[in-house]
């Protein structure tokens, strides 16, 4: 039985705010327009990645290959625009298509070959990274390694909007420029949220994760749903790759190494249950920005880089613990009301 957790991300949001305030007090430079802009532009891609990651997790799976998939998308962008000189409006869709297909492959390995998601995506983590090395334009044409991508369509992703100026909010306070990547993230967030809460597919996802047997008996096409989940995860990885490449004006073979773990942390901090069936889109996004705020905040507060790692880890565990405490309290209350069975030990 999937462990039950209702999830208004309220506690997380509160934690986020508390942390934000704390950092603002610790360092004057934290709560200013520029820094907010940095957070938005620096972590929107991670939020997208986390939202994508949460879909496989919803189906009781996990996608360890997102990091390599990002690299794959990045390198394809690199090759298409640097070697073939294709314009962004072709390269970008192509790259995203490729990463989506990578996701489909994950899904098929899991559904057709009946591999455990963890292993299947562990294998593709290696395989996709290998493919990145194989197709790397930097290895084929070393001179490209020192050239920047100049394609306007692609670099256009890295633009900022003076929302403050447009709305005259900046007269009231220093209003950050909002990066396009943030709006892309919002789009993904809203879309996913709607899909999860309003559509058949979203419900099927939760059903497959919550009680696979029931899903099968209800005639839900479990396999198709799972494949779709991984495909979407791949799609999000593609978007992330586009944003990153636009930021760096290039791509490297090592891009995305270890990103999967950050994405998973973000998702779980965001209240996506690893037992499946429980999750939202806002949670993971919030989780991703939380991680960003922690890194930047600690840096501004002048903590030593190594102490930072210790604190980050502690906060990660702390967040989950806090969430667990609250959900247990909620469950107890629910039992009181429903007069249900005794709290399960497991």
């Amino acid at each position, binding site marked *: 039985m999937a462990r039950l957790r209702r999830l208004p991300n309220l506690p997380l949001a509160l934690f986020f705010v508390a942390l934000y305030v704390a950092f603002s007090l610790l360092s004057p*430079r934290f709560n*200013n327009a*520029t*820094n907010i802009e*940095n957070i938005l*532009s*620096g*972590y929107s*891609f*991670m939020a997208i990645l986390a939202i994508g990651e949460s879909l496989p997790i919803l189906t009781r799976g996990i996608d360890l290959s997102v990091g390599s998939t990002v690299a794959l998308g990045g390198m394809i962008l690199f090759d298409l625009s640097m070697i073939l000189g294709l314009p962004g409006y072709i390269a970008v869709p192509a790259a995203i298509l490729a990463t989506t297909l990578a996701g489909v492959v994950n899904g098929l390995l899991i559904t057709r070959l009946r591999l455990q998601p963890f292993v299947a995506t562990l294998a593709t983590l290696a395989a996709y990274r290998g493919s990145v*090395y194989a197709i*790397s334009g*930097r*290895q084929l044409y*070393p001179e490209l*390694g*020192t*050239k*920047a991508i100049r394609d306007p369509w692609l670099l256009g992703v*890295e633009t900022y909007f003076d929302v403050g100026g447009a709305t005259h909010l900046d007269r009231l306070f220093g209003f950050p420029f909002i990066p396009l990547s943030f709006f892309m993230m919002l789009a993904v967030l809203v879309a996913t949220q709607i899909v999860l809460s309003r559509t058949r597919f979203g419900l099927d996802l939760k059903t497959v994760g919550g009680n696979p047997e029931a899903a099968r008996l209800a005639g839900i096409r479990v396999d198709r749903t799972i494949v779709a989940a991984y495909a979407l995860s791949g799609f999000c990885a593609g978007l992330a790759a586009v944003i*990153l490449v636009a*930021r*760096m*004006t*290039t*791509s*490297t*073979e*090592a*891009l995305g*190494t*270890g*990103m999967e773990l950050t994405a998973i942390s973000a998702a779980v901090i965001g209240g996506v249950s690893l037992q499946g069936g429980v999750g939202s889109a806002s949670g993971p996004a919030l989780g991703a920005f939380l991680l*960003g705020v922690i*890194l*930047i905040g600690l*840096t*501004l507060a*002048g903590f*030593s*880089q*190594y102490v*930072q790692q210790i604190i980050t880890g502690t906060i990660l565990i702390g967040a989950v613990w806090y969430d667990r405490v609250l959900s247990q309290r909620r469950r107890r209350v629910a039992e009181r009301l429903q007069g249900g069975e005794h709290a399960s030990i497991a």
Partner: protein
Amino acid sequence: MSDKSKVLRNRGRRRFLQGTALGTVALAAGTASTAGAGVLSSFVGKTYAAEPPKKLKMAFVQFLPHTVPAAWSKGIESVLRSQDNIAYELLDGQSKVEVQISLMDTLINEGVAAIFLQPVDSVAVAPSIAKAKRAGIPVITLNIDAAEKHAAHVEMSHFLGAKDIAKEMGARMGGKGKVAILNAPPGIVIRDMRTNGFMQGLKDYHPGIKVIADQAADWSRKKAQDVLSTILAANPDIAGVYGVNDSMALGAVDVAKQKGILDKLVIFGNDGEKDALESIEKGELTGTQYTDVYQQGRFAAVAATVLATGGVSARSFTSQGRVLMPYIIATKETVGQIRPDQRW
């Protein structure tokens, strides 16, 4: 052998002296003319003149924790410590580009006086550097130049170094034989520069030498041991091994020692960290590309001080300062020149 080695020694020393000269000249060229004074004064440990009241902050964004950036940091600190109006901190990129970029953003927002940067990639960090320039913050890159013109670049050429290694190695192998490369996985430019340099070197000086194995050992001594012993199983007649960093080269030495074929193998590393130099003196490791990384850090620090306090705005850099660190191919013959306080 003896006169040959004499030749080598002389050659080595000559290049080292050239290098140092070149280095200072370049520094002078690159930075304001006062820099020279700055260099000297800061070396004798006096504080730099005309301190503005508020404390300036400088930060070094390394790519990942490793001996080389650690030594740079020490070098940088040794200069900055002597100037009590400057606060210094070391930040870690966790070997992730996105983190490094985010740290750059943060430092720019913080308005630091100067940023030392060990770029993971010359292009990937260019936008961040441009951003720093807009904010009037001088960026000094270490070892890997950035595509974006910036304040100063202090480098030990990996390409040329690796090329010289190939030359030296070939000379010791008598211009023929089989070579194995203990490499790193792609993703960091250094790896490509060194590999390409080495191949170029063989092509130019010793076309007779064949590279029969190029395997990734992930910068790790343990992996290097395993990989090399595997390679040796298939090709017992290998005459040379090039480790793209010293750790891997030392791993090769471990294997050679254990198999008792140390005298048959010419093993070169790259970086020149003190463990490697020791091993060279013990006559185990054949050689490595050495540069005084402390010094490299100091040069960077000096440049930074000048730029941050000398009233030179980062915006005004049309051509960037460039300090070419002199290096030597440290071998049993030349390693003696390296003073203990130059070993990192």
